[in-house]
């Protein structure tokens, strides 16, 4: 075990993936010599050479197009998009190509060996183009897997699983936690399962569901609520697509209440999918409406970021409202 921050954990996972398979290739804007603007690929070019870890030209649609072809060819393609806010030029390559490659060919071809890594999320005074949480934009796309880790241990295990999973995976890295989240991480190889939520804290009154950096906020709110005698069950969704309906519904059937918090705007966010499914699956068990605590339906602001975000106080208030419904 070592103390690692989230960036180190990711760098370590990439290192393991590149060491074990010389078909593994890492690339993106500035990821080569410089090691990426956040330094997630730091040292990899030195260790594995310029052919396997390199800068690309500044063209996201090209990076993912290239990655699709490389993965179809049988290489393990790990592409970085410098900020999730800049993933949209690659939207067609991801949604129309990566996601449909296997299906449309009747399994003659696939890009299962593709992993797209990208820093995402707000809370870093980044304004509307360095703060977005676009997971819901991808969640309407059968064929993709979408993964978000909450801490260094999760990041390493989930990233290794994503790289090895035989489906294209979009791996969102909560950049607010890159250096802020530090924890014990085994130095050796391990994987955490995709498609499985994790009950992080058991409780009986309400289920608090989130993913990524929002987990911290739910945990903090749960503490506040505990002072009021409210027992929260805290669940990390971990995989957005395909999501673990079973674990979530089991928890809700137990607690009778659900609160989902997400950084992204409320409307058509992934919290909405969860609420829609859970109200249907757990209809007779729900004691209050499913609460969504989300960003406002506006672009991500700068000066008024604090007011905008679904912080622990907003979650705490929503917990009380739900329990007192």
């Amino acid at each position: 075990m070592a103390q690692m921050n989230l960036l180190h954990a990711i760098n370590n996972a990439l290192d393991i993936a590149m060491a074990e398979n010389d078909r593994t290739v890492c690339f993106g804007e500035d990821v080569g010599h410089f090691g990426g603007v956040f330094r997630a690929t730091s040292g990899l070019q030195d260790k594995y050479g310029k052919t396997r870890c390199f800068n690309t030209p500044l063209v996201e649609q090209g990076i993912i197009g290239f990655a699709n072809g490389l993965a179809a060819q049988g290489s393990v393609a790990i592409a970085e998009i410098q900020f999730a806010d800049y993933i949209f030029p690659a939207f067609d390559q991801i949604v129309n190509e990566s996601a449909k490659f296997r299906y449309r060919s009747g399994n003659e071809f696939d890009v299962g060996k593709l992993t797209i890594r990208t820093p995402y999320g707000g809370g870093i005074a980044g304004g509307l183009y360095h703060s977005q949480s676009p997971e819901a934009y991808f969640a309407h796309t059968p064929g993709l897997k979408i993964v978000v880790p909450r801490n260094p241990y999760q990041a390493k295990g989930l990233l290794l699983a994503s790289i090895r999973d035989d489906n294209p995976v979009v791996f969102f890295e909560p950049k607010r936690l890159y250096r802020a989240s530090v924890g014990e991480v085994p130095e050796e190889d391990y994987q955490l399962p995709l498609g499985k939520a994790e009950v992080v804290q058991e409780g009986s009154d309400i289920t608090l569901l989130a993913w990524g950096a929002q987990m911290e906020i739910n945990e903090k709110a749960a503490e506040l609520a505990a002072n009021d005698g409210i027992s929260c069950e805290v669940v990390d969704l971990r995989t957005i697509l395909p999501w673990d309906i079973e674990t979530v519904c089991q928890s809700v059937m137990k607690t009778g209440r659900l609160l989902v918090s997400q950084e992204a705007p409320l409307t058509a966010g992934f919290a909405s999918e969860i609420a829609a499914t859970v109200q249907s699956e757990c209809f007779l068990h729900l004691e209050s409406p499913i609460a969504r605590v989300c960003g406002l339906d506006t672009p991500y602001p700068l000066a008024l970021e604090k007011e905008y975000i679904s912080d622990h106080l907003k979650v705490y208030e929503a917990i009380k409202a739900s329990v007192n419904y």
Partner: protein
Amino acid sequence: MTTEKSPEIPSELYKQGPVVHQPVFIDGSSVEIPELKILHQDGTIYPDADMPEIDEAHAIKIYKTLAFHRVLDERMVASQRQGRLSFYMAALGEEAASVGGAAGLEPQDMIMTQYREQGALMYRGFSLENFMNQLFSNEKDLGKGRQMPIHYGSKALNYLTVSSPLGTQIPQATGYAYGQKVQGIDAVTMCYFGEGAASEGDFHAGLNMAAVQEAPVIFFCRNNGYAISTPADEQFKGNGIASRGVGYGIKTIRVDGNDILAVLKATQIARAYALEENAPVLIEAMSYRLGAHSTSDDPSGYRTREEEEKWQANDPILRMKNWILAQGWWDEEQDNTLFEGLREEVLAAVKVSEKINKPHIDTLITDVYDEPTSQLKAQLEEVKAHVNKYPEAYPFTAGKF
């Protein structure tokens, strides 16, 4: 204009031209683009021409592929008119581009196409049955009846399944070729696209990345003058697509796309260059889409008969026939037998394929992921229960599971 080098700018970062002190523009006419031609329409060879590597057997294989192509297109357009088929896309008049390109490759080379390059797949040996099963989206279609007609693909033949969104295969080809290079495989990737698709951002991405990442990929542009109704002069103002190769620093060659020998020659030297130098090559084949864009289109709405007629005189198949006749490798009787035989075969194959069942209901959810998720399995079970309740409404699958 002086040729003095700039004293201020070090030369590592970019190549320098002459320093001038009066402004001068460069523009589309600043580069001259030669066009390679080897074969006259009458089957004679230009006197000083460099021939491609080709012998009798190869020539006959190519010609038979062209004939199959012409016949299949004719028959399937007719089948569509008869209402037997929902949709088809012919490549009338530009068959030499796809067939000649494929003939210049090795079987291990990957081929990625746009959609009008069935000739390359024919050259690779995709069977008539395979074509038919895709066109009729039946249960024997390698693509499991999921895509519209003409979206062929075959792993065994190294021919990537066609995808409708235009241009997407271009950066993919760069990535594929890069993987071939990294793994030291003796293979290139061939990437076909139309002059219309070359306007997409993915074109820019794919070509620039290929140059920078040094990928052994051949970009093969079929410039057939139209993108549906849009003529090339409303598509770009540059000198065709070849002129863009200069900007990417890519070796580029323009050929007469109706000249099978020129196409073959260009592809052969492109392949050799790409493999030796680990670098891309751009080929622009000048041709003309003689038929409609697809069976859903009627070109009389946007171009003249006269324009079409001029191009009818450039038939690439007739041109090749004239050559092999002149070589003494072929005669008219063989030709008649070939075309008649092909017509019968195709007709017979239509009758078989159109009767084959649609794919099994389970294929609704397979291949979305490597394994169906539990949600997908549950959705399939619901559909099955529903189909069983209303069998008349779902005739393709009811009673078949």
